[in-house]
């Protein structure tokens, strides 16, 4: 009996604390697989965010730093400028990357820092128990928008891929989901391409993953997948927004 597929080497054996059906675990696996496939495990430095993925340092079997909330891109910049030949990634939630960390995100992107950012957009603050995220969609109810997000009061859901891909420093930007096996395969391809972008020293690469948070959406896991596909993608169209190598098509449809 031969095991063909199992936990990638770049993940540890630690049991993950994510809720049943949460997208974080899937994305962890995809990234770890990509690191394995490129043979990067021993030269990887990962930056964990503050958010549900804060414990990523226990799950990735690579050198890890736990950054202050929102500052992962700055921390990663510090690392990368010391170790330009290492593979450096950040793994961040939407609150982390698109609210408190806006300045660090925009400027790392603008500098074209040769980093790979895995961005988990679950339209909510997971770890703190379900408050509005910058990516919460209009009329979505959260604990801090109990009557639904309204543009006039709370602003619009921020579209990170669209925003960042306007910047020259950004080499690769793609939005994917992990809502079905087929989408997971696409997500994996995007993550691989982002890793490659860094290895080729092309600049900043980001993969935005629309990811389910069954717990704070108050849904069963399968309903959450459906909500990603039917609701979230309306605001956040899937697709590649930038690929400096040229094979990127305009995202959105």
């Amino acid at each position: 009996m031969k095991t063909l597929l199992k936990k990638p080497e770049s993940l540890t054996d630690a049991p993950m604390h994510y809720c049943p059906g949460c997208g974080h675990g899937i994305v962890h696996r995809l990234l770890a697989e990509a690191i394995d496939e490129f043979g990067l495990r021993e030269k990887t430095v990962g930056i964990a965010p503050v958010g549900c993925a804060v414990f990523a340092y226990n799950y990735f079997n690579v050198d890890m730093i736990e950054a202050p909330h929102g500052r992962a891109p700055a921390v990663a910049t510090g690392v990368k400028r010391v170790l330009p030949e290492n593979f450096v990634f950040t793994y961040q939630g939407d609150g982390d990357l698109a609210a408190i960390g806006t300045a660090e995100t925009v400027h790392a992107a603008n500098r074209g820092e040769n980093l790979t950012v895995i961005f988990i957009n679950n339209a909510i603050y997971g770890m703190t128990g379900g408050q509005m995220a910058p990516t919460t969609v209009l009329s979505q109810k959260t604990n801090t928008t109990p009557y639904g997000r309204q543009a006039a009061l709370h602003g619009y859901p921020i579209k990170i891929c669209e925003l960042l891909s306007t910047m020259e420093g950004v080499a690769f930007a793609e939005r994917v989901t992990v809502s079905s096996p087929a989408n997971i395969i696409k997500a994996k391809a995007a993550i691989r391409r982002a890793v490659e972008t860094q290895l080729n020293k092309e600049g900043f690469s980001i993969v935005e993953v629309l990811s389910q948070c069954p717990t704070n959406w108050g849904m069963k896991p399968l309903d959450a997948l459906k909500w990603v596909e039917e609701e979230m993608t309306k605001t956040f169209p899937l697709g590649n927004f930038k690929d400096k190598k040229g094979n990127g098509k305009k995202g959105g449809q």
Partner: protein
Amino acid sequence: MANQKAKVLEEKCKACGLCIHFCPAKCIAYNEKKFNSKGVHPALVEKEKCIGCRQCYLVCPEIAIEIFEE
């Protein structure tokens, strides 16, 4: 892939049901007879029916599924 099969690492399973939903062969179900130490009924593959398509591996957030060759 007939000789390739999926198996669930029961202690890792959180019973989210994703594998069950996406299995095209409808060969995964909760093992109602058992609670794992997380307090849930873990998923169980009906090996005979499994066609080794890996969909369950792809979707499992806990990496609680392995694919093996008999």
